[in-house]
């Protein structure tokens, strides 16, 4: 009983990092996201689940304006990061993306050395004043990416020569190197084998200490394992958003229940 109240209190104390209000996304005539409202908390792993094509990736890509690169994509509504509208005219999406890092489904290291993969972001944002500082950032990021021990002896070997799981952790390390506040991950484990998946999941749990992490996953077990909050999307609607335990044990909406019991998907 005592324990329960403690958890409740910590959740209450957590601040909202991102709040989305009445978000609508259209791809040309396709209405991909319909009126989504969600509050994403800091220092929490939030997972987006739902059948494929329901708009999880689309919504995730709204959070760092990655959708700007798609000509036909139109975003309406408000998305606030620490109270500031990221779709405000004065916001430079490039600056935003340094604050809101992203990890993609398929590991996509640059065809450069491991060192340069990590150093690229800090370099273009001017985070290091000299080589020593840059070295430090690279090491710190690789440690955070839980891959330092595996690559410290071959920092100048190409990043593309690593295994799939190592590449994905390298990409996570690359994303944290720019000191973001939010980390978006779009199905980061779907191209990985079970062992690599376990390593990445463990890493995500550690990242929670510093960042707000949003992860899209098609695996309900994964959502249950790594996240504290879960949002269930269905056909562009945010059907239900609650504590992960609540979603998986006692969902309110019948569609959520149908999905987690395997009847839709």
């Amino acid at each position, binding site marked *: 009983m005592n324990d329960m109240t403690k958890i409740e209190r910590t959740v209450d104390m957590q601040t909202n990092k991102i709040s989305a209000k009445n978000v609508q996304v259209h791809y040309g005539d396709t209405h991909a996201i319909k009126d989504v409202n969600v509050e994403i908390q800091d220092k929490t792993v939030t997972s987006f689940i739902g059948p494929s094509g329901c708009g999880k990736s689309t919504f995730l890509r709204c959070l*760092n304006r*990655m959708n700007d*690169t798609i*000509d036909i994509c139109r975003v309406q509504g408000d998305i606030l990061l620490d109270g500031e509208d990221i779709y405000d005219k004065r916001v430079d999406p*490039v*600056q935003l*993306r*340094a604050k809101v*890092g*992203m*990890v*993609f489904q*398929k590991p*996509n*290291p*640059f*065809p450069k050395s491991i060192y340069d993969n990590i150093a*690229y*972001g800090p370099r*273009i*944002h001017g985070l290091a004043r000299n080589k020593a500082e840059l070295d430090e950032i690279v090491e710190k990021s690789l440690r955070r990416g839980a891959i330092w021990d595996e690559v410290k002896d071959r920092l100048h070997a190409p990043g*593309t020569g690593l295994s799939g799981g190592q590449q994905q952790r390298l*990409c996570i390390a*690359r*994303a944290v*190197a*720019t000191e973001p506040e939010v980390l978006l991950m779009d199905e980061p484990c779907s191209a990985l084998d079970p062992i690599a998946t376990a390593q990445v999941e463990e890493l995500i749990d550690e990242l929670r200490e510093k960042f707000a992490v949003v992860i899209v996953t098609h695996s309900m077990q994964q959502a249950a394992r790594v996240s504290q909050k879960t949002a269930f999307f269905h056909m562009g609607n945010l059907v239900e958003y609650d504590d992960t335990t609540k979603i998986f044990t006692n969902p309110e909406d019948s569609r959520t229940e149908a999905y987690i019991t395997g009847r839709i998907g």
Partner: protein
Amino acid sequence: MTDMTANGVPEATPHAKSSLLTQDAHTKQRNAAEKRFRIYGITAIAIGLVFLVLLISSILFKGVGAFQQTKLTLQVELLEAKLDKSGTRDIEKIKKVTTFGYNPLIDTAIKRALEEGGIENPFSKGKDLRKLLSSGAAAQIREFVVANPDRIGDTVEFKLLASSRVDGYLKGRVSRESLARDKNLTPVHLDMVDQMRETGVVNKGFNLSFITGADASESRPEQAGIGVSMLGSFYMMLVVLTAALPIGVAASIYLEEFAKQNWFTDLIEVNISNLAAVPSIVFGILGLAVFIQFAHLPQSAPLVGGLVLTLMTLPTIIISTRASLKAVPPSIREAALGVGASKMQTVFHHVLPLAMPGILTGTIIGLAQALGETAPLLLIGMVGYIASNPPEGLIDGFLSPNSAMPAQIYEWAKRADPAYYERAWGGIIILLLFLMTMNIIAILLRRRFERRW
């Protein structure tokens, strides 16, 4: 033809009884079809190879003669009485002596060579003797004298160009029978040549001046070289490279990475593809109208030729650059944008380096096309006997009238003298060597820069 069951009639054979050790009728049929197809393929390749070998061997066979030239080694006494009557070595006065004034020296030198070799001289007039030599021989000596006036009075050994008939005789192009219809040389000359070859006066050697020299007038094929038009081609390629590469790459990057997809960019895209198929002579007449008649750039100048070829090469470069930009996986762009790179940083730090091998290959192929292009050059006056001296310096190279290798070859092939025919083939060998070198560079660059991602 091959797959009968594809038409829907299922094979009736019950597969329980069939053995893997014997082929059924259907398999046999398919294997036979495959075998036939392979034979077609091999035949096609063999035919292609035969033509290639024929082409190369005939080019080599016909063109190799241009790289050799017959010369007469003569001891010429540079008589002061003829070349510098005043004896003051005043260069202006020496220059006043025309090539005509050198003829007696040449006559004496030939007679001396005949005497030393014990060869009978059936000609009384020096004019007949001089037919053995190129009409440029006197100029060759005069050039030497003007450059070294202090040698007047000495006897100097010269290697003088033989006339194109004598050269043709040594190369098998001219025979005693063919001379029956030729006023320029008689069989008696050929007898003398035979004897002079034995005494070592007449020699056939490597013809460096073909590679370095300028074109010559119609009557002196033995003097004509491709060197100056090679320089013309070189300056044109400089223009094409410096104009077409940046314009083409910038245009492709903009179209591929920045421009919004709408009807206007679609229109541009269609037009660029169409431009690649426009006959090159159209670009020639465009260049004539715009660069020469409107902009008043000098006629026959490699600058104008280069600009015309730039227009022609641009579509090739744009198409290949866009293709290689397209081939860079979008995940690389996402990765760069995801860490907060701007659009331009994404393109220049990540996309362009990966597209580089393709861009370079396309550019070199475009350049190679431009190098071999003749038709547009006809219209801007870059054909014909134009430059007699190599250009002096860069600006002269761009602006003074010149020809280009393929235009020079066309010009030679057009001329009546068979000696020029041989030179046209020789020019083609050089042109092909250039193209081959460029292709090899393209392959090496592709190998060098190619990386997996």
